[in-house]
């Protein structure tokens, strides 16, 4: 189904949704929300594109291969951040103790490993939601 009104509205709205999602992911360590909510919002924008245009246009936004790389990459990034802490001489998933730069409390680039992990989890959640949606659509065919 293609409809002029939904198409133009979603074209207008999607960038704002995505920016909002990224904002929530990046501020995960400062404000309510965080990687999961932010990732879900970002993922929802991709679903919106697919719904209001059609599956092909949505797939172009985030192709299957890229989705699975991002999905695996997000989770691997989390694990590797933990391992980096060991390499730096801390314990698994150590943060300040392993020497991650803490920054100034309250500023965007702060909280060391938590900031990095939030970013990875956000990527993982967004790509998982998109992938799940595409799999469900394909299952119906």
């Amino acid at each position, binding site marked *: 189904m293609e409809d002029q009104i939904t198409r133009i509205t979603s074209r207008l709205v999607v960038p704002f949704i995505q920016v909002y999602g990224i904002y929530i992911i990046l501020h995960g360590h400062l404000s309510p929300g965080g990687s999961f909510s932010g990732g879900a919002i970002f993922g929802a924008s991709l679903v919106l594109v697919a719904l209001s245009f059609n599956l092909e246009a949505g797939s172009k936004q985030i192709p299957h291969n890229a989705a699975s790389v991002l999905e695996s990459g997000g989770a691997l990034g989390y*694990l590797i951040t933990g391992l980096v802490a060991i390499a730096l001489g801390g*314990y698994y998933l150590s943060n300040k103790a392993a020497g991650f730069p803490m920054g100034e409390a309250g500023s965007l680039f702060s909280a060391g490993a938590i900031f990095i992990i939030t970013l990875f989890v956000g990527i993982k959640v967004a790509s998982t939601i998109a992938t799940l949606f595409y799999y469900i659509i394909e299952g119906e065919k």
Partner: protein
Amino acid sequence: MGFSEHFPALIVVVLFFTAFISPLLYRWARKLAAPAVIAALLAALAMVVVLLIQVQQFGIYYYHMGGWPPPWGIEFKADPLRLYILVVLISVSLWIFIYALRDLGHELKTRVIGWYYTLYSVLVGSMAGIALTNDLFNLFVLMEICAISACAIISIKEDRECLEASFKYLILSAMGTGCFLLGVVMLYMVTGYLNYSFLYQALVEAFDFYPLNIFTAAALFIVAFGTKAALFPLHVWLPDAHASAPSPSSAMLSGLVIKIYAFALFLMFYEVFPRVVLEAVPLSEIVLWLAALGAMFGSIYAMIQTDLKKMLAYSSIAQIAYIFMGIGLHHSLALVGGFYHIMVHAVTKAMLFMVAGVIIYSTGVRRIDQLTGIGKVLPVTMVAFTIGSASMVGIPGTGGLISKWYLALSALEIGRPIFVLVILASSLLNAIYYMPIVINAFMHQDEFKKEVKPVPGIMQLSMVVGMVFIIIFGFFSKPVVTLLEQAAALFF
């Protein structure tokens, strides 16, 4: 301790790492996907062995995630018992995986095999975590991961039966986790701790003020782990799930997954709830009698099955009951018996499901009455089945005897010979449904009529390895029993 101090975390991490990298490998470097999983399992096994040696030298070792000390941080504990469980867990899953390399191509579509590797590694990793963790909430999270991946390795076959069975499993196991979470909430409410060791201390005091909360938590834990480990009358999901899954999944689920939950219940009873709680209400007694009923009824249900895999699944209900009996009898010898049975049954039941898988692979037969004369066309397979059955029944020279022996000894030690009778009767029932298959396979005058595909070498080799280990467990039980006796001595 150097680098090896990180091993408790790395055991879990290396498996999860492989899990997430294998879809990528399967997409772009398909040849490397299976070796990567094998390498991860080998690495995990090596780490467990190193830890076991170190723990025996220097004593119990705790690992704090992120360097945060308990009660706030997540703590992993490496003690002889947990490491013993891990050795069994990882070596058996390595063995099943090697068998699965050939069998999966036969049972699954090629495009999902990469996902199967992911699910398999996640499953093993989460079970390793369940065994290692010393924190109730961490346990909850790992149980969820374990439950979802266990359901997924059933439903991955995508036929009607599998979907139905895994849906049933998913619902019941979600109820189990729900009960567990509620129980954790109850304990957290009265103590403010989630760490096992802190809870153990705090519950002694809290028990005077809030006995009802603690009893409720204990009851919820029995239901939660009983459902997940298929303790009789909560076993209803097991037969369908284990019978319809692809054979490697069945071997995994029946051999390891249900046992890890029995082990978790053991940890609750011996490391979380202090003695006063267990003496105030007969919790062990409840588990003990449910186990006794399970040992009988599991075998009785198994007798009336016509499908080979379904029979093996019901037999698991009877066999898991021995492990619960080991927990419920509350005696060090019973623990030795129960834990020895974890190892023996993991190997035996996994091998029997492999045998079932081989029979389905090469002949397509699932019904027990069509197996007459199959011993002449699939000799190695049916010899494996014979040895597996012998171990299930507990015939001398197989591992099954040792665990039943210790269970019976402890029942006599504490003056309750009725459980010796239960063990004996259940063994006889086992013989009633296992032995006719063996006799029909080898001694029936009819020829096997169906067409027979040759069995791949790696599947044969897997079964031979299983047979060898079952016999080793029967004759050389001393080292493991000594290890378990030392471990059990810590609790009495």
